[in-house]
């Protein structure tokens, strides 16, 4: 079998707006208009976002290494894809995420400490989805996409201009739920943005194992418009996501975005990417680092002042310190809490088991007493 050797990465049609060099934005006949309002202030804001979320990610990785988290799924390298898309959303839009969308959660207003508590093993969620209009991590790959489409079907019935957006990776495109979600979305003209972060790997399997054509081409077979964007270009991602969101709000149905990016870290802290990819490939992608990419534009515009950089650094350090403190101060759930919220209404079996559990744990520990 040689499918793994097929490389499916960048393409000529990939939308990009941030220049590789120089200060002038790259013109695009469709998408430039969608970021015409983005001035210096907004660019600096997005730069701050990128730096802060990378710092949260680094802090979480460190906390895992120190034994404070059971696991962490780093997003290193994918910050622009997440920040650009999340910045395109309104508060009332609903996000159906996978499990690596830490930057999206942060920008939706989730306290980063609560993101970490999921990975610590202290909770299965971490936040109330309705408070920030974003689901908590979906671990079964692709399962959240159908839920986003159903939510979108509900939006349409409500005659609302909200939208739903669902995040998933290149691996998820092999799941049956992926195809069903695209099929339902097209049939019901659901106001949904499918946002694929093609980070080139499903744990160790390169994207060529999932597909022999660019992922964005999958959309056409469902009658859904597809856009491929440079996922490390925060401005281009913002533009195409705004475009897709506007289509959804206008009743034009779903749009599929493939953000081509690269997972520069491991799949999770339990992974060892040196076993399946070479250092040269990683080095090539480091040259396309999303933060450096934006910083070059800021430098050319004279925005990368020492004051701005220092302020950004200070904010990142503050957030990281607060995340660390919050993690270390986690109050773990009470044992009896495992019986809570299993059902919305009383359940006789569960009540019996809970009573037995409480009675059992009320007995003094006879071993400790030297029985």
């Amino acid at each position, binding site marked *: 079998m040689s499918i793994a050797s097929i490389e499916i990465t960048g393409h000529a049609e990939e939308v990009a707006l941030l220049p590789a060099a120089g200060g002038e934005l790259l013109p695009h006949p469709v998408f430039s208009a969608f970021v015409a309002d983005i001035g210096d202030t907004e660019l600096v804001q997005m730069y701050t976002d990128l730096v802060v979320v990378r710092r949260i990610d680094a802090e979480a990785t460190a906390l895992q290494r120190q034994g404070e988290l059971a696991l962490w799924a780093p997003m290193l390298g994918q910050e622009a894809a997440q920040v650009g898309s999340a910045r395109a959303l309104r508060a009332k839009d609903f996000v159906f995420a996978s499990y690596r969308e830490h930057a999206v959660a942060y920008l939706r207003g989730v306290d980063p400490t609560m993101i970490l508590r999921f990975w610590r093993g202290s909770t299965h969620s971490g936040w*109330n989805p309705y408070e920030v209009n974003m689901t908590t991590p979906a671990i079964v790959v692709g399962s959240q996409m*159908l839920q986003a489409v*159903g939510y979108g079907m509900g939006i349409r019935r409500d005659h609302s201009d909200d939208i739903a957006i669902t995040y998933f990776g290149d691996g998820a495109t092999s799941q049956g739920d992926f195809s069903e979600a695209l099929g339902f979305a097209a049939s019901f003209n659901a106001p949904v943005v499918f946002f694929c972060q093609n980070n080139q790997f499903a744990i160790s399997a390169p994207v060529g194992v999932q597909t022999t054509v660019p992922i964005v081409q999958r959309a056409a077979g469902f009658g859904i418009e597809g856009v491929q964007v440079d996922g490390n270009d925060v401005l281009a991602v913002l533009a195409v996501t705004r475009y897709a969101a506007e289509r959804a709000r206008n009743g034009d149905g779903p749009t599929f975005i493939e953000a081509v990016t690269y997972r520069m870290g491991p799949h999770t802290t339990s992974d060892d990417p040196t076993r399946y990819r070479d250092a040269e490939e990683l080095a090539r992608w480091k040259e396309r680092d999303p933060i450096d990419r934006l910083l070059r534009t800021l430098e050319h515009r004279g925005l990368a002042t020492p004051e701005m950089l220092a302020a950004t650094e200070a904010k990142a350090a503050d957030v990281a310190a607060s995340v660390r403190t919050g993690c270390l101060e986690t109050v773990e759930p009470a044992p009896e809490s495992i019986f809570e919220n299993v059902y919305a209404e009383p359940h006789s079996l569960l009540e019996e088991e809970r009573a037995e559990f409480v009675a059992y744990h009320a007995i003094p520990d006879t071993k400790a007493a030297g029985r």
Partner: protein
Amino acid sequence: MTTLSLAKAINAGLRKSLTTDDRVMLMGEDVGALGGVFRVTDQLQAEFGRERVFDTPLAESGIIGTAIGLAMRGYRPVCEIQFDGFIYPAFDQIVSQLAKIHSRTDGAVTVPLTIRVPYGGGIGAVEHHSESPEAYFAHTAGLRVVSCSSADDAYGMIQQAIASDDPVLFFEPKRRYWDKQDVDLDGTPTLGLYDARVVTEGTDLTIVAYGPMVSTAVAAASEAASEGTSVEVIDLRSLSPIDFGTIEASVAKTGRLVVVHEAPVFLGLGAEIAARISERCFWMLESPVIRVGGYSTPYPPSKVEQYYLPDIDRVLDAIDRSLAVR
């Protein structure tokens, strides 16, 4: 009172729920213009419109997954899975998503979904159209599983299931769809959705059955009565949770228990009931609990399904075996 078949009674119950709560919607394969392959949703699209009663693409995971999203948006979807054997493509969305969302979100998100499943054999169908998958779902925390057995009961039960804030799997005994009964369309249910019901009172032995096996058990009880044995028949109705109180009270009286279902005996609902009753009624039992059900084989071709399905004779045989222990 109106005389209705079981299928028509469920249809009437769905109509009532659609009328009283505009968040209720019906979705599934062929539930629209066709009215479902068993006509359970007959005329409902014409009455309530395509926004509330609609056909979906032919994809079971898609049906349940999108219904979860609709529920998160505030709707109360009622999904039809066309046949028992077609529910497995939706297994992840049911057991890993639907069942866990309320608990996962610390109670923030409720998912009031009803999944209707025509189930069981005895209709001479081809493969995958005659199965009894209820135990898979009863084994999963976060789901509620019920099964109706008769028209009068089904009318209220489907409305109660739709009104529940928890996800409910509603198993419909398809071979009883055409059985008729008097139904009080203006009545309100006297039993809770999770209560068992004593169908026939007796003093010598208890039979617990549900869904399609209730009428088989009642017929067996009638035969046994002609031989002088007084059998109490309990319609379980709810498979998760199980109303053990009603079973215990009956066993306290009779001392003998036979559990009957179409699903395989091995690790079926009967295994759980036998274990619990042995734990709770050990000193009241006159004989071991006996289970009657399907074998550890795939559901057989329909020309021989009558050998797989429990019937009156197999239930009577179990009664005899129980009574033989003295």
